[in-house]
């Protein structure tokens, strides 16, 4: 039964563009960090994304990178936290702080990936290494998840709090 349902969902995802509007968000954090890379990798950012039919509109800001941004993009991912292939480029301010933006037409599969937490935003910068052993360079990244409430540091949330594992519809 589970297998049948999965197949149906997969087929539906492949042939149908999203028929609903939904908001997504992510917080961009540095990657990857160790005592060698931390001198050239840093900063933070916030990104929101809105779907309208099969159109995805992405807007965000970033700041405090050790060197200027060179490009920003959206990638697919087998599962949140695992890097994957670049599928779109975004406009980005070529500076250590600035904005990113873009409007993208999603395929059904890409829309399905968005809904299941398998798209992420990445910004590259000048001083980041050209590549890492596991894939292309990066400086900031963050996975797009359905919009959620973040109470702020030290502020408790009761009964339910955002956990991507549960709050992304399916994996």
């Amino acid at each position: 039964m589970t297998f049948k349902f999965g197949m149906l969902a997969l087929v539906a995802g492949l042939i149908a563009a999203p028929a609903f509007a939904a908001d997504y968000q992510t917080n961009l954090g540095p990657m990857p960090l160790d005592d060698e890379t931390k001198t050239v990798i840093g900063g933070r950012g916030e990104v929101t994304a809105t779907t309208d039919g099969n159109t995805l509109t992405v807007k965000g800001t970033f700041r405090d990178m050790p060197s200027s941004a060179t490009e920003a993009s959206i990638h697919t991912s087998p599962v949140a936290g695992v890097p994957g292939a670049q599928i779109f480029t975004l406009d980005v301010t070529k500076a250590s702080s600035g904005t990113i933006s873009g409007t993208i037409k999603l395929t059904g599969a890409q829309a399905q990936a968005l809904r299941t937490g398998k798209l992420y935003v990445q910004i590259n910068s000048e001083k980041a290494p050209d590549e890492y052993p596991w894939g292309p360079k990066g400086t900031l990244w963050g996975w797009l998840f359905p919009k959620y409430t973040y109470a702020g540091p030290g502020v408790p949330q009761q009964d339910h709090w955002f956990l991507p594992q549960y709050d992304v519809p399916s994996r």
Partner: protein
Amino acid sequence: MRKKTGLLVTAATLAGIGLWGASAVGQNAAGPFTQAQVDAGHQAYADACAMCHLPDLAGTNDAPALAGSAFMGAWKNRSTAQLYSKIAATMPAGAGGSLSQKQYTDIVSYILAVNGAKAGTTAFTPTTAVTIASVATGKVTLIAAPKPAAGNTGATAQTAGRQESAPANGPGDGNAQPQGSLFARAMAGARIPDPGRFTVSTKPGLTVEGNIQNYTPVTDEMLRNPPDGEWLMYRRNYQGWSYSPLDQITPENVKSLQLKWMWSLPENGTLEITPLVHDGILYVWGTGNTVQALDAKTGELLWENRLGPPPRQPGPGPSTEETRAMGLWGTNIYVNTPQGYVYALDARTGKQVWKTHITDEKPIPNGNGAMFGGSTGGVIIINGRVLVGMTNCGRKGDDNHCYISAYDAKTGKRDWIFRTVALTGEKGGNTWGGLPDNERKGGETWIAGTYDPSSNTTYWGTAQAKPWRRDLRGSGDGATDYANSTVALDADTGKLKWAYNHAPGESLDLDEVFERVLVDHGGEKSLLTIGKAGILWKLDRTTGKFLGAKQTVFQNVYAGFDEKTGKVVYRQDIKDQKVDQWLSSCPGPQGGHDWQATSYHQPSDALIIPLSQSCVFMLGNGSQTYFEMPGTDGNNGRLSAYRARDLKPLWSFQQRSPFLTGVVSTKGNLAFVGDFDRVFRAVDTRNGKTLWTTRLGTTVQGYPISFMVGGKQYIAVTTGLGGGSPQLKPSTLLREVKRPPNGYNLFVFGLPD
């Protein structure tokens, strides 16, 4: 991009920057270093690296192997310049760049030589770039230690002097031989300036003898039902609750909490201890196995025994140098040491009563004098026996294995052992993919167990199988019993009653080794535990049957996890891993959850759990690089409460810094916890709101407790440094946090008089 790199290397070669450059060098051709560099590198490695990576470069815990197939798998296609850059920037851990350029080039030369590269006539420099596989074979060639330089004789003389002057119960035993770094030799040689200005000597041994009168012996009954104001064991009661029935300090008056006294503990090394309190005396362990008894009300020192050896390096130590819990029984206090000794000291005087070693000082083959078997988790005293776990349990190819062992508390005689690795022909022995018995490693026990007196059963968690990556381990999809399991043992015999493997075939250093909390709900007798993967498990502790589970932080290691059955299914690329492949792991080795233990707040049936949120990319040899956990907004720390009865989420808050202490909760509806960024806080157990904070000298690290003396309730906690992933990951991820490299202290707080 690869073309670009190649061009750069070629250009550098043409420019003469890298003498060996990209020129073709035959397999195992002479290496780009000299024998003098290898010799100097051997000593530099012993001083700065061997403590974590081990004398034979085999690696341990967070320190990757630097020799053999694991090293070559990670480095064979990379250049010597990259190896130099990596080591110079990042090593020693937490102090990258702190050695001289010469020391780094010498160390790289030594590592290459151990991996089969032959010394040549040209000196290695930071820009010498040659593919490592072209000079090194990976066939490990252990190199004899160079003859000591003339300057080292002083250290030898100091050593002899120390041994001569050490009292019989001091560290004048085999294990206390000062080895390794100049710092260790200096520390062991009492070179600390101490011209009689301090009443307390810094020399090893029983430096202050106690004379505590009218001491009340600790009985089995007291351990089963601890007096309200006392803290007699690791988590205060046998059930592992870390819950104090004291209620003078409340949400209403906690804002007036103030420092009553503090005590400076020995600096350097790793401090993660639980103070104990009995009869108005507070007992604390400090680095260098310094055991002290203090007046719990005033902070006056009553006795001190420096068991030794001192920390091997200045500054924070690795995750193998601590102990987390002592134990009290009769008139003795029991102490396990990271070196594998178990001591009984007279709790009234500090004098040694007996001492034993958990492996009888069995040497590690080629271990440069090191012994098999360490112990960092602490002890639990049950029915007149001292139960202790084991770390450092042997390597592939030797016949050593981890075990839990029990000793007669009166004599130190070993009563039983339970080996945590199932061998061929034993129950569970078919879960190692047919590996020979001498290749079945791991299953360390680095957290003291808990105990159910009603069934006379003791419960322990075990760490993963070793090597932790299954591609290196060779056990295929085997579950590797009894690694990453809960084991239930008869407390009198050590016989296995049942075992539950939480993470069969674990592969990314995600231990399930931590505290086992025992809770009853009517007729349901459960055991709750949470490991690095962040899954809160609930088992029937009578049968070992799975009762439920709750995921507490994001994870991507399991493609499938069934909260109804407890079955986990690994991500396919983890199952198919190769030694030279980087794998993403959320959580990473910081956890999820780590040694910072849960408190069970009985009045609200709440498990209050310190959690961490970070991920890693990990290579086959254990090399790691980190990133923030998706969906956490950069918050590495989380404190969450779940109802034990049904695992319902109650409350949770996040913050940038992880929590580096266990939690203690009280009948006054407060929970106390400390963090990486020096904040110690009181939280309302009913809603998670922070009601009081104070900022201490360095990371708040250890296990806070609550006790009563003179009719007043106090809260005690330690600050300190050292340890593995819980320290290492935030040290890199939270660059804005600034902490001094010292400040090992004990603080005691109370309400105004």
